[in-house]
């Protein structure tokens, strides 16, 4: 964060400098805006299965909203850049598939298992949180690759080997759609909790100045761990629900680096660190992405790459971030 935005943030939280606006009213307006956004999302996605049987477009939109939102928990609120984010998505997909197909458990329990597996691996990897900057990114990427190799080394009886797993007997797109809806709401709720509670203030304090946060008594390790657990649970659930929706799991698509790439692009295009950032970013870019993907599949990667470069060079703070910088008066109202 630059000094400029940091100043406005301090201003927003410091009752003395915000003389004309009392902070309670500010946070009230902020909550109202956020509540409006969430209501809009619910209204947009809840009734879709009543009108059409072609759920794919809306299903994947919810998927990317969830991925971008939970990516924001670590990247925007805690200041980490996990390049191997896809690992948790893949683990979730495989945990669901293995529990359902190999062990014969019902889908809801398999999904719960997927979340548990994601969180367990996340906790196992928690020591990587003490790494700084690029080291964390590189290790995270290496871990995603290692995870894929480990699954490929597991006996084909369990993971289906190179053919992957087919879950056709579980086919129920409408239920899978609502499962993704529930996961999205869960991610939004977790985001609300992470950013509007004391925890969120602590997280941002650590991101902006770790030493200072420690001095005023923030437990750095535990605070980051909470954000990390949230950020690992949701992609695992998303991976599991997606596996249920498509009924197919294989190594290449479950551990495709594009999953990380798109989570990053959507979250960044909106603006990291804002609750509404990933939502704005994913809504703005998802439609364009679908259009390109449908008509020019090979150009998809090319354009995704160009978008990442252009965003970093021209709009590094994202749409919401740029707005907040341009109209800093309104900065305090943006959730």
């Amino acid at each position, binding site marked *: *964060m*630059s000094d400029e935005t940091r100043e406005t943030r301090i201003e927003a939280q410091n009752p003395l400098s915000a003389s004309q606006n009392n902070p309670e009213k500010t946070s009230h307006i902020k909550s109202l805006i956020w509540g409006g956004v969430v209501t809009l999302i619910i209204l947009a996605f809840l009734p879709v299965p009543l009108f059409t049987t072609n759920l794919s477009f809306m299903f994947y939109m919810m998927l990317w909203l969830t991925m971008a939102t939970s990516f924001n928990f670590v990247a925007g609120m805690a200041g980490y*850049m996990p*390049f191997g984010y896809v690992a948790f998505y893949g683990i979730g997909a495989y945990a669901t598939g293995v529990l359902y197909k190999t062990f014969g458990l019902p889908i809801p329990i398999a999904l719960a298992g997927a979340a548990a597996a994601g969180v367990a691996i996340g906790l196992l990897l928690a*020591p*990587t949180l003490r*790494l700084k*900057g*690029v*080291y964390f*990114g*590189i*290790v995270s*990427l*290496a*871990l995603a*690759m*290692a995870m894929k*190799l*480990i699954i*490929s*080394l597991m006996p084909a009886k369990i993971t289906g080997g190179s053919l992957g797993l087919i879950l056709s007997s579980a086919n129920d797109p409408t239920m899978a759609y609502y499962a993704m809806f529930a996961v999205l709401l869960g991610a939004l709720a977790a985001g609300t909790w992470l950013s509007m509670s004391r925890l969120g203030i602590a997280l941002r304090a650590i991101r902006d100045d770790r030493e200072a946060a420690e001095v005023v008594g923030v437990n750095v390790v535990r605070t980051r761990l909470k954000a990390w657990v949230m950020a690992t649970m949701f992609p695992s659930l998303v991976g599991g629900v997606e596996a249920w929706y498509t009924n197919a799991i294989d190594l290449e698509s479950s551990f495709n*680096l594009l999953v990380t*790439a798109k989570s*990053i692009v959507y979250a*960044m295009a909106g603006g990291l660190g804002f609750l509404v950032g990933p939502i704005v970013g994913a809504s703005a870019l998802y439609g364009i992405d679908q259009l390109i993907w449908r008509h020019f599949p*090979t*150009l*998809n*990667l*090319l354009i*995704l*790459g*160009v*978008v*990442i*470069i252009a965003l*970093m*060079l021209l709009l*590094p703070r994202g749409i919401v971030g740029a707005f907040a910088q341009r109209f800093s008066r309104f900065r305090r109202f943006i959730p």
Partner: protein
Amino acid sequence: MNELLLQGLVNGIVVGLIYALIGVSLNVIFGVLRVVNFAHGEFIVLGAYGAYFAQQLLGLSPLLAMPLVFLVFGLLGYGLYFLLVQRLSRSNDPEHASLLVMFGLSLVLGALMLLAFEADSRSLNFSLEPPFLMFGNVILPTTKLLGLAVSVVITGCLAYFLYRTMPGKALRAIIMNRDAIQIVGVDLNHLSALTFGLGLGLAGITGIIVSMIFPSFSPFIGQDYTLIGFIVIVLGGLGHPIGAVAGGILFGLAEQTAMVFFSGTVAMLLGFVLLIAVILIRPAGLFGVQNLR
């Protein structure tokens, strides 16, 4: 069994030196510019295509194509620095920003290569007489030996450049202290651009050597080389140009011996485990003497 192990160790050193070359160029770029070149592997593959087309269209042997590729990639790097990298130093978090921009560049390059050269694997038409030499029971293909020799020569030249010439010393000085070097009157921008050019030029040459030794290349394998490069530079110390040589040989040995006893997948897994273990236990790298931050 012992012969197999011996063969594995010899292969390890040969492959390791080539890995070292990947790491060295990656480390020159990271050390000087603080740019994590995620697209390095794509430039390596692009270098291999350069040699391929130089051979197909101009009839140049891969060895003669090396200076040409170095020059072209060097110029490309010099230009790309001003287009992409220079702005990053003004960002709030240059390292993350560079990681993301280079990630985008790697997607772009991979997609462009796929569009231009299509998905089939290609290989260089390159062979030597005799095709292999026997040392006792150890077989060494002559192309591998040649690749080894070229890697050693290039690493030697680079070491000479970095430690014995003025621009090389200035370059190392940037790694040590970015601010002080400007006070003594070094044009940081120009030198940084040259460094990026040097790094990409080396990546291009590495691509040619790699394609002489490994059977084939395709637009998809860039990422593998990038990851190998990351493993090597983390083992040898991030930002430590010559430390990467030790890291490369170590990784080559570990990978090739694992391949003798287990499989290619286990060998790759071992690489990642090594990387993670080293970062967690000794973030400065196995051979990094001082923290270069």
